[in-house]
């Protein structure tokens, strides 16, 4: 028996090494299943919790065009959530169970969404930086070994790059605008830059699981590599906007061919992860409120569907009888 499982695991790994996709009905090690349930559901939670900080500005968007753009973007994120929950469901967990994990604090979501959106410019900064950072992660995930996850990423990445461009365009508008608008943009960058860098997770030396994740192709690059990639792409974009990165240590390193950057405030990072960030409580409350207040609606839909199917059944029975 032991040998059997060992064989299966070896064959499984060989398939991944050969670049084959693992599908839900295929045999997989329990740990692979659990890891994917955890990662995909947390990714899904991030999408829907991520709707909240941006949703905060929908009713106050400064123009009709911007309002439509933001509404559509936040709606896209709901779609991403839906798509990812479905992908996780193929591994044998229900959406209700995943929600329960989110609501009880058992499952995490991206910490960036525990920061408040304090001005319209934050909507630009989030699109530019947060969607931008998400893309770096997700492009890597389009080639991950679990088929439904990889395919979800392909579709989601297209929309994320649209979001990123939309966010950058908002920033560009502000930076080409009045002094007040430019200040607003700079302030948003100051507040969102560091939390964006934190999105890539702890430093490699403090990041467990990486080796296993690399084997399963969930991770093809380490946290630090991805973070560096993001910085290298983003700094010239800030230059183009005429904005200053809030990091005095940031400078091009000719030798490395990368930007050097200052030390991330890891204390703050862990505080936010542990639930003590600026908006953790509010974000979770918004989600649990929506869920609790929606309970009677979901009950009604279920009750109605049941009544309808009973009705259909009795009609069919009558037909057969006559």
């Amino acid at each position, binding site marked *: 028996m032991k040998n059997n499982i060992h064989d299966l695991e070896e064959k499984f790994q060989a398939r991944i090494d050969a670049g084959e996709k693992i599908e839900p009905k295929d045999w997989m090690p329990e740990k692979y299943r659990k890891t994917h349930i955890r990662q995909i559901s947390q990714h899904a939670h991030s999408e829907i919790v991520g709707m909240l900080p941006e*949703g905060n500005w929908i009713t106050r968007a*400064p123009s009709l065009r911007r309002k439509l753009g933001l509404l*559509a973007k936040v709606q896209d994120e709901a779609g991403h959530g839906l798509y990812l*929950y479905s992908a996780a469901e193929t591994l044998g967990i229900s959406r209700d169970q995943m929600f329960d994990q989110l609501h009880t604090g058992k499952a995490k979501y991206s910490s960036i969404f525990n920061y408040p959106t304090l001005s319209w410019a934050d909507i630009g900064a989030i699109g530019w930086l947060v969607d931008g950072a998400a893309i770096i992660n997700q492009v890597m995930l389009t080639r991950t070994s679990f088929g439904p996850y990889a395919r979800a990423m392909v579709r989601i990445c297209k929309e994320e790059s649209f979001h990123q461009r939309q966010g950058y365009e908002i920033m560009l508008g502000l930076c080409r605008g009045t002094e007040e608008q430019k200040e607003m943009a700079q302030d948003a960058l100051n507040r969102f830059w560091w939390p964006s860098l934190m999105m890539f997770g702890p430093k490699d030396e403090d990041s467990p699981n990486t080796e296993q994740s690399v084997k399963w192709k969930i991770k093809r690059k380490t946290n630090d590599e991805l973070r560096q990639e993001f910085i290298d792409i983003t700094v010239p974009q800030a230059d183009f906007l005429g904005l200053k990165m809030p990091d005095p240590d940031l400078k091009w390193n000719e030798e490395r061919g990368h930007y050097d950057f200052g030390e991330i405030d890891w204390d703050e990072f862990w505080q936010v992860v542990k639930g003590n960030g600026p908006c953790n409580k509010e974000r979770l409350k918004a989600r649990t409120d929506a869920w609790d207040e929606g309970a009677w609606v979901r009950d009604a839909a279920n009750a109605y569907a049941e009544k309808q199917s009973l009705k259909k059944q009795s009609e069919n029975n009558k037909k057969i009888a006559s």
Partner: protein
Amino acid sequence: MDNSLYQYLLILGDNSMILGHRLSELCGHGPTLETDIALTNISLDLFGQVRSYFQYAAKIADSEQTEDSIAFLRTERKYRNVLLVEQENVDFAHVIVRQFLFDGFHKLLLEQLMQSKDETISAIAHKSIKESKYHYRFSGDWLKRLGDGTEVSHKKAQDALNKLYPFTNEFFLESDIEKEMSAKGIGPNLNILKETYYSNIHQIIAEANLTLPIEKQRVAKGKLGYHTENLGYILAELQYMQRTYPNMQW
């Protein structure tokens, strides 16, 4: 400028805008992801229509106007939406009932506006009718789920209907502008729509196992610019950026 036509476009656009605003308040807070997406979709459709109406209004205006100055820079009394659409979300039942009562009218109105002698209005109506039909089906289906779902949902839907139904009367109180538009063949004679509207919605209300409220109408002059206290708060949010940072591009 044709001031009547301009005002008429405000009546049309403001209804979509204020209802779209109410729906947009819910984005991210729906009872399920699917309903969240669907309600946001309706909001998007409505704001899309607003842009069409207000771009047209800006074009025919004498003074320098843009879709945004029209949307965001009027004082409260200059908004011409019916009172129904500015009513608060309260709960999902109120959202659905408000939507249903509006969609039933909106669909009939757009069907008429497709025949408008004003080509732009007719074109907007042709584009919007598909959306409106979908909205009406969505809200009607949900009305049945709530009305004929559980005891709790039935009661909530009935409460919402009792509260919101009396606002429907306003759809058919023709303002002078609507009378003029009807005479010119630009807008419909609203009296003709009234019977169809009520027979349509009454049928669905009955299917939803709900009963008509005893109070069937109330004084409502939103189209003349007399609003409920809700609108001021809506505008405080809606106009915040344009008022705080005047004359800027976004």
